[in-house]
C-alpha cells in the first residue's frame, strides 16, 4: 500500500488526507503567528501545555480503543493524583525545611509524583474490578452508553467523596523544585514546567515502547483490534482490560501530580483537564493513541493563540469551534479512528 501511494500524484494524496493537510497548514500558521506575537516564551509555553494534554489524552484514547469506554472520570484520576502528590510532598518538604539536604530535595518531588502514579494504578484496578468487570460479565449490550453513564457516576462519587473527606479547600504548592527559572532562547521557563513536560514525554515514550515491544503490550493491541479473536488465541481479556484501565488512570494521576504547582488540588480540579483531553481525543479520532499525542499539541496551539490574539476568557471557545468543525467535516477525527468495536455495536 505504501508503495502505491508514493507513486500516486501529489494532488490525489493531498485529497485523500485532506483533514490532516488542512490542520497541518492551520497549525503552522498559528505557530508562526504565535512566534511573531509572543516570541520564544509563548512557543515553549505551547509545547509544554501540549505535552500535558497529550499525556492525558493518550490515557483516554487507550481506554476507548481497548475497552470502548468513553471515560468521563479521567479528570478525577487527575484530581486523585494531585491530592496524593500534595499529601506526600508537603510532609517531605517540611522535613527538608528543618533538615536541608540537596539530594533529597531534588528527589522528593519525583517520589511524590511516582507515588501518585502508583496510587492511580491501584485506583484503576479497583474501579475496573469493582465496576466494569461485573458489567462486562453481565451484558455487553449497549456497552458504550452503560460505560459512559458509569464513568460519569464514578466522576461524581469521587469528586464529591473528595469534598466530603477533604473539604472544598484548595491545596497547592508554589513549586516543586526551589531553583531559579532556566533561560532558553531568551525565555525564562520554570524548572517545574520543564520537568512536567519531560515526565509527560518519558511516560508517553515508555507507554509507546510497552505497547510496541513487549508481549503484554502486543496483547493489548490485539484486544483493541478484536476482543473475541484475541481471547481465542489465548489472551486473558480480563487481565488485559484491567491493566489497560489501570495504566490510563496512572497516567492521569501522574499528570495531576506533576502539574500540582499549576492546578491546585481541590475536588473538582479534574474538570478542565478532562475537557481538554476530550477535545484532543475527539479531534484526533477516538481511540487513536498516536493521534492523541499530536492532537495534544494542536489543542495547545489553539489555546495559546486564543490567549494571545483574542482573550484569555475565550480559551475554551476556539478549541470547541475547531472540534465541531472537525466533527462536521471528518466525523472520525483528523487522524481517523481505528476503533472497530463502535461500528460493530
Amino acid at each position, binding site marked *: 500500500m505504501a508503495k502505491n501511494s508514493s507513486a500516486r500524484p501529489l494532488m490525489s494524496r493531498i485529497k485523500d488526507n485532506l483533514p490532516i493537510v488542512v490542520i497541518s497548514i492551520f497549525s503552522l500558521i498559528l505557530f508562526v503567528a504565535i512566534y511573531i506575537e509572543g516570541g520564544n516564551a509563548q512557543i515553549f509555553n505551547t509545547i509544554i501545555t501540549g505535552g500535558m494534554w497529550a499525556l492525558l489524552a493518550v490515557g483516554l484514547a487507550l481506554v476507548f480503543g481497548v475497552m470502548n469506554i468513553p471515560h468521563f472520570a479521567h479528570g478525577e484520576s487527575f484530581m486523585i493524583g494531585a491530592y496524593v502528590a500534595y499529601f506526600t510532598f508537603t510532609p517531605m518538604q517540611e522535613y527538608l525545611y528543618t533538615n536541608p539536604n540537596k539530594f533529597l530535595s531534588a528527589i522528593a518531588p519525583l517520589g511524590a509524583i511516582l507515588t501518585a502514579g502508583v496510587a492511580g494504578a491501584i485506583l484503576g484496578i479497583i474501579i475496573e474490578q469493582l465496576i466494569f468487570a461485573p458489567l462486562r460479565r453481565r451484558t455487553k449490550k449497549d456497552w458504550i452508553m452503560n460505560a459512559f453513564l458509569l464513568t460519569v457516576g464514578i466522576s461524581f462519587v469521587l469528586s464529591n467523596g473528595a469534598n466530603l473527606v477533604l473539604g472544598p479547600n484548595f491545596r497547592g504548592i508554589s513549586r516543586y523544585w526551589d531553583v531559579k527559572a532556566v533561560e532558553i532562547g531568551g525565555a525564562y521557563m520554570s524548572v517545574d514546567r520543564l520537568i512536567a513536560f519531560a515526565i509527560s514525554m518519558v511516560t508517553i515514550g515508555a507507554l509507546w515502547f510497552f505497547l510496541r515491544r513487549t508481549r503484554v503490550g*502486543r496483547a493489548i493491541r490485539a484486544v483493541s483490534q478484536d476482543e473475541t479473536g484475541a*481471547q481465542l*488465541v*489465548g489472551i486473558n481479556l480480563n487481565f488485559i482490560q484491567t491493566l489497560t484501565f489501570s495504566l490510563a488512570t496512572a497516567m492521569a494521576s501522574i499528570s495531576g501530580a506533576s502539574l500540582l504547582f499549576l492546578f491546585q488540588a481541590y475536588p473538582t480540579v479534574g474538570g478542565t483537564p478532562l475537557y481538554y483531553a476530550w477535545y484532543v481525543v475527539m479531534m484526533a479520532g477516538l481511540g487513536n493513541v498516536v493521534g492523541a499525542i499530536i492532537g495534544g499539541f494542536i489543542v495547545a496551539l489553539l489555546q495559546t493563540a486564543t490567549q494571545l490574539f483574542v482573550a484569555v476568557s475565550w480559551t475554551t471557545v476556539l478549541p470547541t469551534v475547531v472540534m465541531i468543525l472537525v466533527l462536521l467535516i471528518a466525523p472520525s477525527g483528523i487522524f481517523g479512528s481505528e476503533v472497530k468495536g463502535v461500528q460493530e455495536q
Partner: protein
Amino acid sequence: MLILDTKKVTKRFGGLTAVNQVSMQVEEGQVYGLIGPNGAGKSTFINSIVGRFPPTEGVVYFNGEETTGLSAEIMCHKGMARTFQIPRPFPQLTVLENVKVGVIFGSVDKDPMPADERAREILKFVDFNLPIDTPADRLNAVQLKSIDLARALACKPKLLLLDELASGLTPGELDTIMSLILKIRDQGISIIAVEHIMRVIKGICDTVMVIEYGTTIAEGTPDEVLNNPEVIKAYLGEEEAENA
C-alpha cells in the same frame, strides 16, 4: 481415548433453551461432524464448550479433564482452538502478524522455533497463496477463513472446532478444504466440523451428530444419519420425507 466428552450440556438464554442435553463423545483423531438446520444450536453448543458462553447445565470433559465453564483463553491453552463462521481477524495486522499472534499467545509451552518461522510454516501448510504481508482488512471472505484457520492451528490445538469453514466456497475450493481438513487430522489433531454442505460431511466425517431445536436427533456414520427419516424430516419437512 475420548478427546471430548460432554454430558447433557444445556444452554439456556432466559426462557429459550438453545442447547438441550447434548452428549457428545469425540474419539481422538476423529473428524466429527455436527449438522442441523439453521438456528438448531450448533454454534451455541460450540460456544459453550470452548468457554465463550459457559453451559447452564451439564459437564464437559476435555482430554480427560473436567473443563466445564472455563474461559476461552484457558481452553485455548489447554489445546482447544476454533474458527468462526464469520472470521475474526485482527484487521490492522498483516496476514503473517495475525498468525504470529496465535503462535505467541496461543500455547503455553515454548516453541523452539521463532514465531516468525513457525507462522510462515503454518501459512504454507494451509496453502495461503497471497503475499503474507497483505493487511488482513484487504482479504476476501475465503482468504479470511484461511488465516482464521492458520491462527487456530498456530495455537497448537489437540482439538480444532471448525464453524462452517466450507460455507461460501466454490466446488473447486471445497476439494481443497476437504483435503486440508484431512491433512490436519493426519497430524493428530481431532476435529469437530459444523457444516451444512453434505458433500463435505460425506467426504471427511467419521461420525456425524444431527441436532434440531437444540436436541440430538441422530448420531452415527454419515450414511446412516443422512438416511435417517428423522433427519430428512428436519431438513426437508414432513411431506418430502414421506415421498423419499
